[in-house]
């Protein structure tokens, strides 16, 4: 197990190196410097600015010094938010986005698993068709459409819930969490349905039935553990998706999180900010993929055997 974790962490190093290098090169090959759209500054000011951000050095030197900074966990100063570092901005946005992603995930897991299990118990009946059609609807209703519709219905027409902000008014976290979570709830419902269907056709479930165990006991004690493995494996990629989804949801609901910072810095061409956040996101995604693999390993004895045996 430890060897597995260690080898996965070692594999993450080249991936991160590739991410850093590609992003760095992309940003530095962009036409026009980061200050080129500023109102015509005198050449000496421009030179001073470039010196301040090390832009006057050759590219490889910039790369080496940036890499050594990143290894020490320093993403440098922001180009556009003067006087603030990328680290400070990430530190400000991360708790907000993490909380949003957590709530969204809870919404997704709760709705998704209950709908999927419910549907799998009676396949090809109304009890299956209704939740699965709803799931399909959830997949086809992108967050940038669902969010505004929720705002329109519950925020503006019914005036039940606040429509923007984060932690200012009670209840303002409800709509963003639902908006971000719904699509994942739909995927999780489909995954848990197919996982459960497969497990329910296994011999050990038939044995449990033959022993006369109640349906409830069979489902919760015996089937769920195996049936939810596809869901667990989906959690890592889902987390990466949640980050992307937070771009939209944080923009719609005006939430000061990482996603909104990323989109804003993309518009402002705040290169150090984009660079730092891309690397940070990549690191996060790698960690979460690892965690979800470990969880799947812990739940599935067959995979555990494989991990112990080879590789």
């Amino acid at each position: 197990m430890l060897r597995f974790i260690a080898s996965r962490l070692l594999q993450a190093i080249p991936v991160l190196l590739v991410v850093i290098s590609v992003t760095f090169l992309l940003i530095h090959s962009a036409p026009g410097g980061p200050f080129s759209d500023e109102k015509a500054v005198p050449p000496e000011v421009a030179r001073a600015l470039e010196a301040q951000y090390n832009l006057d050095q050759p590219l490889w030197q910039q790369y080496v010094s940036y890499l050594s900074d990143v290894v020490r966990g320093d993403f440098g100063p922001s180009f556009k938010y003067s006087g603030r570092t990328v680290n400070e901005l990430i530190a400000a946005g991360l708790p907000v986005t993490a909380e949003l992603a957590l709530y969204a995930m809870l919404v997704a897991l709760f709705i998704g698993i209950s709908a999927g299990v419910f549907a799998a118990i009676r396949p090809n009946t109304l009890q299956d068709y209704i939740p699965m059609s709803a799931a399909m609807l959830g997949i086809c209703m992108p967050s940038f459409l669902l969010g505004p519709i929720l705002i329109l219905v519950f925020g503006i027409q019914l005036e039940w819930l606040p429509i923007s902000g984060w932690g200012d008014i009670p209840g303002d976290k409800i709509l963003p969490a639902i908006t971000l979570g719904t699509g994942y709830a739909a995927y999780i419902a489909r995954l848990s349905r197919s996982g459960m269907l497969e497990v329910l056709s296994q011999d050990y479930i038939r044995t449990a039935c033959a022993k006369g165990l109640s349906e409830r006991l069979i489902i919760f004690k015996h089937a769920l553990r195996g049936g939810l493995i596809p869901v667990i494996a989906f959690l890592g990629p889902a987390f990466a998706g949640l980050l992307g989804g937070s771009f939209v949801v944080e923009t719609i609901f005006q939430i000061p999180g990482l996603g909104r910072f990323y989109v804003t810095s993309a518009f402002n061409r705040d290169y150090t900010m984009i660079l730092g956040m891309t690397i940070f996101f990549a690191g996060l995604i790698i960690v979460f993929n690892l965690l979800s693999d470990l969880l799947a390993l812990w739940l599935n004895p067959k995979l555990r055997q494989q991990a112990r045996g080879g590789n």
Partner: protein
Amino acid sequence: MQHPSQASEQRSSLWLDAWIKLRKNRMALFGFVVLLILCAVSLLTPWIAPYSYEQQDLMLGATPPSSAHWLGTDIFGRDMLTRIMYGGRVSLMVGFIATAVALVIGILWGSIAGFIGGRVDAVMMRIVDIMYALPFMIFIVLLMVVFGRNILLLFVAIGAVEWLTMARIVRSQVMALRKQEFVEAAYSMGLSRWAIIRRHIIPNTLGPVVVYTTLTIPSVMLLEAFLSFLGLGIQPPQSSWGLLINYGVETMEEYPWLLIFPGITLSLTLFALNFLGDGLRDALDPRASKD
């Protein structure tokens, strides 16, 4: 197990079989019909759109649906139905072209890796694994920022994200096929490698590829809409459904129909394509599980 000389016969019966199964699946058939209508409307838009794309009527402004403007008009007095039709052309084009990019890269990569095998395969699939771990949504935003918001780049960027799964599917298919007895038999009969790829490998991988392609189109369209919604995709004066939804959101309190109609169109399209993909999967690839 099929015999080499029956390959073409087998192929046609596979497709016929699939068509018969697909016809029984009402939702998939509905998806197919919607897709056909969308393609027809998109192709014919310049001739059948009720108004021209540039036509605006500032005096009219935003009006709810009426007999002159079935889906209403936007704040510039532009006919919404016309705008959705032209936007659909762009959305569908992005969907098809980016999927084609993904298809070409994915099939080439997967079939080379699967057919050569060994160390080449290990290296190629390792690259795919590494790229899977990268935050691609973020990379697309990055590309759009660095190189400007150029529609061609959008195709390439989205295609470059979506080929990974295709490569995996094709590779596993090719690997499985390579070891089958009928391929060995074809070798022993002295068929060239290329003939085997063309006659046996490609036709037999086609099923899963078609299924996955159908499922890739809606996800690509969703990506495009997502980027356009953020202002990083299609740029005006061009229009797409994502961009129309973006505009609709800005004025949704006063003129909700500007959000609702493009939204319904996008959702309905995604719905239809997903059902078609699911139906094709059931019809063409009975082993694949429905997830």
